[in-house]
């Protein structure tokens, strides 16, 4: 319970958005364009733009703007729009807590502790890199080991080179991009080591970041030893069998001063958990309905905090939807109908949304997204209503590295029986 004095300090905001990365900015723009005047964005860093600020390579915006932009250019378009619309953004402001009644506390150097009550709350905190501690890596705890994103920040935003001879563990896109960046800035990248028999990175990045610079991609390999007293001096790499155990006799040693880790991203949901929002163990994000609303009324989630996306274009698209839905919620345009659950079937991991409203009135198309559990060629994706197949689509290729999507049409949604809906891949 708040004291009388503190109660007087609570600021009411119609729509409050946590994070001013691509997701938070798009959500704010959409909410404002839908007519919400009283909205506020809180951002922990000193600048808007999120991770795009350090992604100085090109390849962003092909879907949304039909042109190829660098990260800073993509971010600037949203920053300009946020400013043109007069949306208030408080940078350097860290959200400390949220609860299911949408009561928010935040802190900044300038304003100290701030208390808010939000009509609707949009969670857009993004994700963070899986750290070394989560990997159970062997060997010395020396310096010279960075996550790929940390190295990217050093090189691109602060102008520091983390090292001269580099091995990269993991072949996610950030690792691949950093292999090229370190090479262009004068380092020698010795190898990119991937535990799985396939890379989770885009083909474009494998070709243009590794092949172009003759950097070997060692699939089904991992780092089995890390050596170094104070600074890293070398790593030992070995091939793994199909159960991912190192195969004796396949060891090779690399003399290096830097090891970069590109081993996955984890949605940053510490705040979400405080509000007791139902979570999905597969996406590691909130469980949401087709309007991006969580199981807590008025709390929405979008972008990489909800599930890790491959392209920022899709983050923006999803977040526009969340901003629009949050606006509708505070404007009292609530949706009526019955919910059905969407479930992962064979070959499907982490379907989003997990709940779907079958509205009383007219339905809209709903995009269903998921990650394939493995690599499938010439497979069929299907959606089942109970046992009945309601949608079937052939896909030339499905890989865990690329999010797959299907569109449910309004008439298909209206015809749902009310039981569980399952998404599956059939070989």
């Amino acid at each position, binding site marked *: 319970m708040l004291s009388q004095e503190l109660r007087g300090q609570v600021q009411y905001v119609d729509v409050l958005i946590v994070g001013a990365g691509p997701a938070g900015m798009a959500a704010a723009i959409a909410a404002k364009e839908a007519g919400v005047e009283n909205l506020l964005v809180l951002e922990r860093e000193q600048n808007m733009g999120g991770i795009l600020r350090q992604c*100085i*390579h*090109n390849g962003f915006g092909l879907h949304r703007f039909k042109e*190829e932009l*660098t*990260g*800073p*250019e993509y971010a*600037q378009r949203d920053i300009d729009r946020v400013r043109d619309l007069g949306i208030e953004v408080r940078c350097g402001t860290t959200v400390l807590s949220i609860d299911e009644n949408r009561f928010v506390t935040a802190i900044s150097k300038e304003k100290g502790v701030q208390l808010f009550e939000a009509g609707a709350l949009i969670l857009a905190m993004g994700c963070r890199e899986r750290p070394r501690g989560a990997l159970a890596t062997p060997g010395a705890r020396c310096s010279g080991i960075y996550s790929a994103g940390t190295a990217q920040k050093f*090189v*691109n*935003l*602060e*102008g520091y080179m983390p090292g001269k001879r580099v091995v990269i563990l993991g072949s996610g896109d950030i690792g691949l991009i950093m292999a090229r960046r370190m090479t*262009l*800035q004068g380092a020698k990248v010795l190898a990119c080591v991937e535990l799985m028999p396939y890379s989770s990175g*885009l*083909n*474009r990045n*494998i*070709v*243009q970041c590794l*092949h*172009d610079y003759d950097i070997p991609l060692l699939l089904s390999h991992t780092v089995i030893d890390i050596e170094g007293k104070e600074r890293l001096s070398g790593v030992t790499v070995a091939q793994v069998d199909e159960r991912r155990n190192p195969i004796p006799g396949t060891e090779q040693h690399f003399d290096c001063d830097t090891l970069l880790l590109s081993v996955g991203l984890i949605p940053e949901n510490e705040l979400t958990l405080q509000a007791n929002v139902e979570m999905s163990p597969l996406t590691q994000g909130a469980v949401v309905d087709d309007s991006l609303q969580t199981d807590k009324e008025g709390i929405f989630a979008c972008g990489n905090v909800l599930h890790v996306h491959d392209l920022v274009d899709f983050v923006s698209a999803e977040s526009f939807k969340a901003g629009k839905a949050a606006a509708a919620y505070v404007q009292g345009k609530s949706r009526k109908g019955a919910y059905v659950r969407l479930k992962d079937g064979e070959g499907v991991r982490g379907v989003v949304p997990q709940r779907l409203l079958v509205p009383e009135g007219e339905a809209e198309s709903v995009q269903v997204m998921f990650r394939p559990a493995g690599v499938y*060629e010439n497979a069929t994706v299907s959606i089942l209503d109970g046992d009945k197949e309601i949608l079937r689509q052939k896909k*030339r*290729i499905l*890989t865990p*590295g*690329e999010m797959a999507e299907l569109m449910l049409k309004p008439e298909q949604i209206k015809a749902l029986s009310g039981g569980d809906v399952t998404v599956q891949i059939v070989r």
Partner: protein
Amino acid sequence: MEQQITCINCPVGCRLQVVVEDGEVKSVTGNSCNRGLTYAKQECTAPMRMVTASVPVMDRQTPVSAKTRTPIPKKDIFHCMAELGKVQLHAPVEAGQVICANVCGTGVDVIATKSVQ
């Protein structure tokens, strides 16, 4: 001469076998669509790449990010980086500003992709 390349147009990543004679593509196999054909022809005769970099700005902690306005020949990537290494920039730098004109004689300018005040 036969070259092996990976098509980058989609996640299938077809392995393309490309026969090049006298700087001309004679045949492409392994592609499953026409985009592979177009890609192989370009990639095996005149491969082009966008180059992006971060360039230091004097008296500022933050470097400025930069890109070639259009792709340049792949063989010029390292020359381009070397030339950018010699550039002496002073704040303010505006997004879109040319920071290295006609890099390596390619006819392509390198421009800033953000502003540094």
